[in-house]
């Protein structure tokens, strides 16, 4: 199984030096994970390192395509509050 970085990545590079398998590489438009090299950190760390430092909710998916850090899990902003406030801003 392998993790995946998707387009919401902001290219902060925090994950790249942490990967025990050097599976993260520079690509366009965002960093990517080499699925052959990625082990989800099994045997090295209790938590997959890239997803553990990643500051962007939803930017890294697990082997099942699920968000490892779902909305609200890192910022503490309840998703419904975010939706409500963004709708208010749109309506201005």
């Amino acid at each position, binding site marked *: 199984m392998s993790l995946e970085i998707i387009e*919401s990545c*902001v*290219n*902060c*590079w*925090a994950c790249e*030096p*942490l990967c025990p398998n050097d599976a993260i590489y520079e690509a366009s438009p965002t960093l990517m994970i080499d699925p052959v090299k990625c082990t989800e950190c099994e045997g090295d*760390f*209790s*938590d997959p*390192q890239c997803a*553990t*430092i990643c*500051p*962007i909710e939803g930017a890294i998916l697990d082997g099942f395509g699920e968000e490892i850090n779902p909305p609200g899990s*890192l*910022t*503490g*902003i309840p998703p419904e*509050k*975010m939706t409500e*406030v963004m709708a*208010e*801003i749109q309506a*201005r």
Partner: protein
Amino acid sequence: MELKVLGQDETTTVEKGCSASSCGSNDDQLSHLPDDIREKVHNHPCYSEDAHHYFARMHVAVAPACNIQCHYCNRKYDCSNESRPGVVSELLTPEQAVKKVKAVAANIPQMTVLGIAGPGDPLANLDRTFDTFRMLSEQTPDIKLCVSTNGLALPEAVEELSKHNIDHVTITINTVDPEIGAKIYPWIFWNNRRIKGVKGAKILIEQQQKGLQMLVDKGILVKVNSVMIPGVNEEHLQEVSKVVKQKGAFLHNVMPLIAEAEHGTFYGVMGQRSPNAKELQDLQDACSGDMNMMRHCRQCRADAVGLLGEDRGDEFTMDKIEAMDIDYNAAMVKRAAIHEGIKQELDAKRAESSEKNIVPLESIADGKEYRPVLMAVATSGGGVINQHFGHAKEFLIYEASMEGVRFISHRKADQYCEGNVSCGDGESILSLTIKTLEGCEAVLCSKIGYEPWDLLEEAGIVPNGDHAMEAIEDAVLAVYQEMIANGKLDEEAAAVAEAGA
């Protein structure tokens, strides 16, 4: 009766024979400092309201990664229309950063200071940060280096920092209490795990305090930045000020929280309010009994270029820099000559203002006590009132009191781009500007138009164009004297007494 301009210690001046360039500084945050520290910071634009009109600084954005999350930061943000910390447009490699520094230093010879401030945490990007510092210490020895950090990785970095001619480090310390910390920092990345809440905040605080102590022990100057968050840490920051002073920080910079819903930060979305100018000033005053306070921070972007409060970053994008051919050795010669010229000008001005610093108030020596008055000043630099009201992008706020005149803060006239109140059919820019002058009773400028004149008067702020090209402190004192002489401060005392009766 005599009033003196605060922050000018004549005793020291006399004893030292006024030889150092640090003499007669008008900045209250610098005047309390020991001479050796003043010598280090006198040409640092971020530490001296006086110097920042002459010397420029730049930040290079080489450090994108971060090891903590703060509730006032959104890591997704990148907007070129904004000016606030943590925001940056073009990420640079260390090699590109060095090229950019040389290009800026050659074209803006007043640039004396290079900082690495983000957009993430510089010490969470050790290789990029230290590669940049290493090359700069070798190739641009006439530029001071400084770095700012959240402190989490600081203890491990102190040894390396001390090798790179870095004499200033800024640590952002918002609290020394883990319970409060948990309301500011949702998580930290520590020993390969994401640690949330009080536990994470406790580790962060311990690392900050340890790092602060280690830097001080190494003789590296430490400034502490704190973000004032109403209802979260505003009272506690007095305690922070005491603690960091006791540990040996030389300056404390309390800055107002910037939080707007459209920034997408926790505080912005959740409706956490920012402090107003008076709340900020009150807290800075409360802390100043214990600590040298910094009052003119402009809260720059992580890639700011130029004089404080201005950003010339657009002139130095990578594609433009690549096209420049810089002979840095030649530039250094030119820079040295220009720095010497500025130093002489500053010394002369400081000497002149320290001669004038006793202002007789004999005409009003009636033995009464009068309350302090805040005044706003429009200036484009040089320590004189020389700007048209309508051209002022910011105002310097001074307080005149029975003790003299002191610099309090600056206030921006054009607000951060907020997309709502300032753009559109709401209030005009003018009425917003007047709102930012709340609490001031006079505004001193070189000239002012009829429309703002009337609106200012309506708002209870007296426009004053009588002191154009005069030194700021002298003019502020003169206006204070006029207010006393005209009985303006009497009337109010009477009104207050009446209301109370």
